[in-house]
């Protein structure tokens, strides 16, 4: 079926608007084999790398135009152990509103519900950019109801994957009652993925060599469907979000499934066929200084990709919400659990209480297991903050973690990492413009690299300058000598421009955005960054 929409839109040049932004990062690599910053091309030969994104937007004649130039020179973003070089138009789009219809063509970012069945987004720290290259229509049925439809192919750097993705979503807003209204924001979405011939041939060519027993039941299909129903109910101080999603049976890769090697032995990692489901709910209460959030999630075989044989961060059509606290301090954020798309039970409770303007308290508990009940991650944190007028703010807290490093970082046989991390922060304002922040953290653990201490001093001369120095010291190592990882940086803000220059020694660790994580090697060198808005 073909949709044709004719309109007589006259181009009225009333003076267009051009705006955009630049983000550029340059790395000067300094080899340091003591911390493991070696044996990859950037440290051995190239010594320099850069990433940049220049976005331009123009609005005129009722149209919105946008494009973005991306550049990667000796970049570690795509693969932390390799060197990625490419450049080109990373995004372009054209958008037009016609009465109640919004038409967008080009590279599209969007999501349905929390993203469980579809999310096209960009996350530069992990070089995730799974924009949909296609067409999107959004139609306002009335002031409270909107329907969206889209179709296209998922972006892959400067190319695209072959599978076709299409989706439809209906979102609404319903208010019941006038004096103390209950507000409903229901929604329904469906996404379908049709494999391209190359992807299907790849699956067939893999299954050909499975034994008949391993191949039994693994009949691949070109089409997979995912459905989601969701609703937000807001009533007084309460807000309750619930979402349920189902995916039709499809071939997926399970890294833990076993198959025969044809020689009488077994190999780990096999294609399986299964349907999938996700249930997610979040209940919040906010009143009189209290903020309480309870979240629960159950995931079962919900890997949804453009090609089922893709792994890690590649080809993901959807996004499963993370279920651990987003920590901001260096040591409390060292171990972050990646979302397990094939199976997990997760629960999180967060309680905040501010009895007055001076005091605030926060307690957080999160617990993640696999579907068999085996613990994968647990975190408990309590924090207190005291604000003295406008002069100073003091924060103290303590965190306890249990982290399955074997699973989350692919390090087989290592024990569960158990940490206790007390921390403190003191922010003092000398003047309204001048302030000093001091941080101290101590992570006690017998696993992984061992125990750490961390100190930070940051002096701000608002609005322009920020000077900081920090040191992370492996005070009780289990794997290396006692190594110091210093970082010094200067940030300069002028109007819409932000410049930063840093000297960094960073231990290997996990970089996460939401529940999407990647193991990063150690970093040693200088980094210069520019962010400019115009």
């Amino acid at each position, binding site marked *: 079926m073909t949709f044709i929409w004719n309109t007589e839109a006259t181009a009225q040049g009333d003076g267009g608007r051009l705006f955009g932004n630049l983000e550029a990062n340059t790395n000067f690599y300094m080899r340091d084999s003591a911390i493991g910053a070696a044996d990859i091309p950037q440290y051995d030969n190239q010594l320099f790398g850069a990433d940049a994104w220049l976005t331009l937007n123009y609005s005129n004649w009722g149209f919105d135009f946008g494009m973005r130039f991306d550049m990667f020179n000796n970049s570690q973003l795509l693969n932390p152990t390799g060197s990625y070089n490419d450049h080109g138009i990373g995004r372009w789009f054209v958008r037009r509103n016609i009465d109640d219809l919004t038409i967008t063509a080009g590279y599209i970012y969007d999501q349905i519900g929390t993203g469980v069945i579809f999310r096209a987004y960009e996350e530069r720290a992990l070089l995730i950019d799974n924009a949909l290259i296609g067409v999107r229509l959004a139609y306002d049925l009335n002031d409270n109801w909107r329907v969206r439809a889209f179709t296209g192919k998922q972006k892959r750097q400067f190319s695209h994957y072959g599978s076709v993705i299409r989706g*439809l979503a209906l979102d609404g807003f319903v208010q019941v009652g006038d004096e103390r209204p209950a507000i409903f924001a229901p929604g329904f979405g469906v996404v379908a993925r049709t494999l391209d011939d190359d992807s299907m041939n790849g699956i067939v060519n893999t299954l050909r060599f499975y034994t008949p027993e391993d191949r039994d039941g693994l*009949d*691949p*299909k*070109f089409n997979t469907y995912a459905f989601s129903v969701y609703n937000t109910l807001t009533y007084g101080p309460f807000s309750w979000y619930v979402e349920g999603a189902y995916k039709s049976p499809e071939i997926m890769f399970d890294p833990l499934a076993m*198959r025969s090697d044809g020689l009488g032995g077994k190999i780990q990692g096999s294609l399986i066929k299964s349907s999938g489901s996700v249930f997610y709910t979040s209940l919040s209460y906010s009143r009189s200084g209290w903020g309480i959030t309870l979240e629960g999630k159950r995931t079962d075989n919900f890997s949804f990709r453009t090609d089922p044989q*893709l792994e890690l961060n590649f080809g993901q059509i959807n996004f499963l919400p993370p279920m651990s606290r987003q920590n901001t301090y260096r040591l409390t954020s060292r171990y972050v659990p990646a979302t397990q798309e094939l199976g997990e039970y997760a629960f999180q409770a967060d309680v905040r209480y501010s009895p007055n303007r001076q005091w605030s308290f926060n307690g957080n508990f999160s617990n993640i297991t696999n579907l068999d009940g085996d613990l994968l991650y647990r975190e408990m944190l309590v924090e207190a903050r005291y604000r003295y007028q406008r002069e100073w703010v003091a924060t103290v807290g303590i965190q306890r973690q249990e982290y399955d490093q074997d699973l989350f970082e692919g390090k*087989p046989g290592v024990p569960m990492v158990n940490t206790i991390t007390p921390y403190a922060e003191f922010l003092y304002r000398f003047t309204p413009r001048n302030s000093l922040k001091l941080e101290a953290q101590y992570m006690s653990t017998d696993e992984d690299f061992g125990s750490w201490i961390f100190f930070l001093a940051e002096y701000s001369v608002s609005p322009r300058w920020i000077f900081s120095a920090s040191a992370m010291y492996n005070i009780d190592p289990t794997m290396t000598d006692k190594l110091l990882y210093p970082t010094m940086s200067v940030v300069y803000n002028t109007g819409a421009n932000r410049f930063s220059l840093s000297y960094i020694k960073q231990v290997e660790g996990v970089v996460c955005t939401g529940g999407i994580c990647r193991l990063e090697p150690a970093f040693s060198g200088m980094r210069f960054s520019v962010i400019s808005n115009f």
Partner: protein
Amino acid sequence: MNEKILIMNRTGLICVLFAMFFFSACEEEGVTIPDFVPPDSDRVVLIEELTGASCPNCPAGGSELQSIKNRFGENVAIVAIHSNFLGAPRDNSKYDFRSQEAQEIDNFLGLYLGKPAASINRKMFSGEQYRAIANVGSWSGRVAEQLDGPSELVLEAEVDFDPGSRNLEVEIDVAAKAVVEGDLRLTVYVTESGIVDAQLSQDGVIDDYVHNFTMRAVLSDVFGDVLPQIITSESSVSRQYSFEMPTEDGWWVAENCHIVAFVTLHRSSDDMEVLQAVEVPVIN
């Protein structure tokens, strides 16, 4: 009334759209998975596996390569390259399989997702992210694809090893069935199997793991010796190589060594393909 009609029309439109989605979810034709039939081809496919002693998933790659060797026999030549990433020896390792040449080959093959990753005839397959493929289960299928058709080149290797002097003489003859032209390069490896040493696995360290197909030396230039631009059936090319094999010391067991030679056609820095390979034992 007009507004009600408008809302009803719009609602009807939504129902049609949803019906299309659900209606399109009809049963589709099943996909036939053909049984594997051993190929009838004179082609020899080169598999270069990026691996390492500290790579926990690499024993799975090793098992798959052994299955591939059993399945395809003389139609595959396998080389396991221990480059730096996850290649460090274990605390109880006797040997370090890494080498500068291995890392240069790793860099030359380009980015890869992780180890184990195998390059099949150095070809960038349609639909793949990288030349070195991390999906172990797909390696057999890619090999089968490459065996779909005869080879354009005929590669022969003659090997002469003197156990006393440990001197190894290799002669590689390259001829075309018709005409082959382009940037052609000849690469020659020495590989060794049956080396017993530690290897990290998903269940911890395997102390007596048997390392097979391990690249031990590169006799040619790492990126290949340049051959004439045109090779025909009547203008074959020969190259000779000499190598003094180190003294046997748990490894460098000549009986376990092979010569793997292959010719690559370079169309550009990103586009290359192995046209033919040959694998012969050092001691027949």
